């Protein structure tokens, strides 16, 4: 690994990320964590992996006209992430918030590596980013996650289904193969980035209980109480 470009300034905030396949239940769980911390009166903020206005237009155009290659796909999403990181995530960290991220750079590491980008190039490119204090990875069998998605949303988009990879011409079959490859990439990263594994097949309230315990252990929560709240 190349030397990381670490932020030189103090970042009293904490960062908790959730990662996993679409349909692994991670969004539900991070939402429950957010509700818990809010209701308990902590300084908490939520951020998700979607596009800023800045590059939304370009991404949309690129996807629609199929202009994107693995490299430009990766770069444009990193640009988008950097915009959100510099304008939102880092300021929140500097201001002492607990930041909850629904997907983080590991999503890009997995997805872009499946598309053929060099893993070390990806890590270098994203090295401006602070590592999360906790990364929960939601482990569910690929078939379970895929059937949840296919059950609720019949129309798959071109890139979402990974059709650009040419794995299969059938969108559903392509999605299945694409997701299994992403899953493999995630598992390969688990040790490198110290993922905390969550069994996504357990009942939601049981998972939530475990998440909260880990968060209590790893983060000194009282430090993040709003002072002006009753």
């Amino acid at each position, binding site marked *: 690994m190349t030397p990381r470009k670490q932020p030189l300034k103090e970042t009293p905030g904490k960062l908790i990320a959730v990662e996993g396949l679409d349909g692994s239940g991670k969004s539900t769980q991070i939402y429950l964590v957010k509700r818990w911390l809010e209701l308990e009166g902590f300084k908490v903020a939520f951020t998700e992996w979607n596009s800023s206005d800045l590059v939304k237009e370009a991404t949309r155009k690129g996807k629609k006209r199929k202009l994107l*290659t693995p490299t430009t796909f990766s770069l444009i999403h990193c640009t988008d992430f950097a915009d959100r990181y510099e304008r939102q995530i880092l300021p929140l960290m500097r201001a002492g918030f607990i930041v909850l991220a629904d997907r983080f750079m590991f999503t890009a590491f997995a997805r872009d590596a499946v598309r053929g980008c060099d893993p070390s190039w990806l890590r270098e490119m994203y090295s401006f980013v602070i590592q999360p204090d906790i990364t929960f990875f939601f482990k569910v069998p690929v078939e379970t996650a895929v059937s949840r998605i296919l059950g609720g949303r019949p129309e798959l988009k071109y890139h979402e289904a990974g059709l650009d990879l040419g794995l299969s011409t059938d969108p559903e079959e392509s999605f299945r193969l694409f997701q299994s490859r992403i899953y493999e990439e995630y598992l390969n990263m688990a040790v490198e980035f110290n993922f905390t594994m969550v069994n996504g097949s357990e009942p939601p309230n049981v998972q939530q209980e475990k998440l909260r315990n880990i968060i209590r252990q790893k983060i000194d929560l009282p430090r993040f109480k709003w002072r002006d709240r009753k």
Partner: protein
Amino acid sequence: MSADRFFGRGLPDVDVSGLKGRLIVIEGSDGSGRSTQIRLLSDWLERIGYPTLTVGLRRSTLVGEELERAKRGNIMSSITHCLFYATDFADQLENRIIPALRSGFIVLADRYIYTLMAREIVRGSDPEWIRGVYGIALVPDAVFYIQVPPKVLAERTLRKNLVLDYWESGMDIRRSGDMYECFINYQTRLQHTFNSMQGAYGFQIINGNRLQRTITNELQARIGEILHALPPPAAAAPATAVENEEKTE
């Protein structure tokens, strides 16, 4: 093309074996005469029978327009800015530069990754990080850096436009309220950065503070040597292989 085709790990899914053309980069600040020289070189190359393509910054189909807009609005932080330009670069590299080289074109790059890197380094970005991002770039066959003293750049720019450009004056990182002073400071720092990169990247420094014709002659002589290794123009691919236009749609 050069033996080591990429600065870093290169591009996935892109075959760069058998690139028959030549990639020639001209670097230099606005007012250095860079664009004029590019135009004259393009005319010259086509006159002697080489298919030629000119590429430059913010000209990609993918994000060119968005970058122009963002440039006017000054709404991006530094890392975002750098990555957005890298996206623009990669799109042109994969969709214009490499296909043209494959067809045997001479590609003239009106600035390349060096400007993109130097600008960000002057603005405080980590040089290692930027170098890593641009590991996707193809190593050019020659890089000419037209250098002109900052005071002369200011004179020429004001003579032509009557105003100094916001970005070329480094007003986003200004240290003084005096725009002229900002311009001189920024251009001086940019030149220092270019000079410090020279050894690693093997620029040929061209003294731009001379008659236009003298500079053109020097560039033609140096480019002539590079062309010597190519088959004669008649053997190059037909000019219809790649559209010799800025925008493809």
